[in-house]
């Protein structure tokens, strides 16, 4: 149904939704959004609406999956059937299976896995509405959910993409930019450690452009990192108030 717009960047250098190239979409984060999970978070980034929940650490079943010296992280990234333009079958697609893996591997470096040997943590992510950049927003939310669950962590993981659209390097691509643009570089960062825990790329970039995109995405990550910490502080403050 969607048709390619002629220009993704207008004469004033603004994008389809009026953003400047280095501007993030509006972001809303809520820590502790679900009552059953041990930790949870809800994120809206543009039209993306994503829930993340953490269960654990808990015993491993079946037992032979347990590791003697560290805990095991499982991760499931899943899209609701109504989250995208054409209804998505609820069975996991190959894309969802790959993203579950790279999201898990982007969260693992942040967790002190050796603190709880022979246990398991489940990270469940449900994309209720998708508008480009869901893997990054999922990582941002999942990391908050892990913190909300009290999992001991080196740092939060925050993720953001940059890419190339109509010859311009832009931040935080939305769906149309992702599909019609030239390249997309999603990455995840532990800001205190300057550690990239996710890095993927689609499209074609010169090494110079690649470097610019990485740097711009890192800037985006730092801004979102502030929002992550705020969300956790807000929940903590609210809890204190309730307790008092």
């Amino acid at each position, binding site marked *: 149904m969607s048709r390619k717009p002629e220009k993704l960047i207008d004469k004033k250098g603004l994008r389809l939704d009026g953003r400047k190239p280095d501007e993030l979409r509006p972001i809303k984060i809520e820590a502790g959004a679900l009552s*059953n*999970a041990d930790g949870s978070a809800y994120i809206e980034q543009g039209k993306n*609406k994503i829930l993340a*929940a953490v269960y654990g650490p808990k015993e491993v079943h079946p037992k032979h999956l347990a590791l003697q010296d560290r805990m095991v992280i499982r991760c*499931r990234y*899943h899209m*609701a*059937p*109504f989250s995208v333009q054409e*209804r998505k079958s609820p069975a996991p697609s190959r894309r969802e299976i790959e993203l579950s893996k790279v999201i898990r591997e982007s969260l693992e470096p942040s967790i002190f896995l050796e603190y709880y040997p022979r246990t398991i943590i489940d990270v469940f992510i449900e994309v209720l509405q998708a508008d480009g950049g869901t893997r990054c927003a999922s990582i941002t939310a999942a990391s908050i959910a892990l913190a909300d669950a009290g999992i001991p962590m080196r740092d939060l993981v925050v993720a953001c993409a940059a890419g190339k659209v109509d010859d311009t390097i832009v931040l935080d691509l939305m769906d149309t930019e992702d599909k019609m643009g030239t390249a997309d570089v999603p990455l995840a960062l532990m800001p205190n450690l300057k550690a990239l825990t996710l890095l993927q790329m689609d499209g074609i970039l010169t090494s110079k452009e690649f470097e610019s995109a990485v740097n711009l995405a890192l800037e985006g990550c730092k801004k979102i990192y502030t929002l992550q910490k705020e969300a956790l502080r807000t929940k903590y403050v609210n809890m204190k108030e309730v307790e008092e």
Partner: protein
Amino acid sequence: MSSVITRVKQKQIAQLVAKGKRLDGRGLMDYREIKVEQGVIERAEGSARVLLGRTEVVAGIKIETGEPFSDTPNAGVLTVNAELVPLASPVFEPGPPDENSIELARIVDRGIRESKAIDVEKLCIEPGKKVFIIFIDVYVLNHDGNLIDASALAAMAALLNTKMFNYEIEEGEMKIKSGYTPLPIKRRPITVTFAKINDVLVVDPWLEEEQVMDARLSLAIDDEGDICAAQKGGGGYFTPEQVLEAVKIAKEKAGERRKNLDW
């Protein structure tokens, strides 16, 4: 955060119910607070989020075109799917639908289908060849009991929120026109679920009550107060008198809800 409650608490719940009380302070025939929010998923043709106490369900509607069933060539197709997504409860596991999610989907489906809530004949584009297919996806996000009522409510609210694009047939080809039309809704069934605890009926059981209950009875009531679907669940039983009592109460409860929702 265990999902299995202690025997002590089980006894407590059962004893309270015998005295006409409930652990969370409600009367036996009181529902928890209900919030219904429509249009929460802009990408979907229709959607709604229901909070029933701490139970949270989102329903989304997607519409596609496809072939009708051969025995109903003039009728659109209705498909209900329910996902007990694992972030909603420690007892839900990833994987293909299990008997619980299939039963849930089929109860929601029956309430809508049997009450003839949607005028499916109006969803026919070309008899025997092309009709609209309505996908109702029920997504349970937090499980705190009585998923049936919350899901049935979310599904119906999402249908009432649904907009279809306009079209016309030009030389055998479907052409999309500007503007949107609501779905042809004829009835608004409301489902009321009872639990039998210690031989006493309560409505809207929450999670801990479900773990204690002997059996469950769900009744879908349409706009005229008629019964349009019923389902007993759980490994216990009801007496015929309990069933008839439940029917009477369900009609009342559905009437109240209908008034509140302005349905």
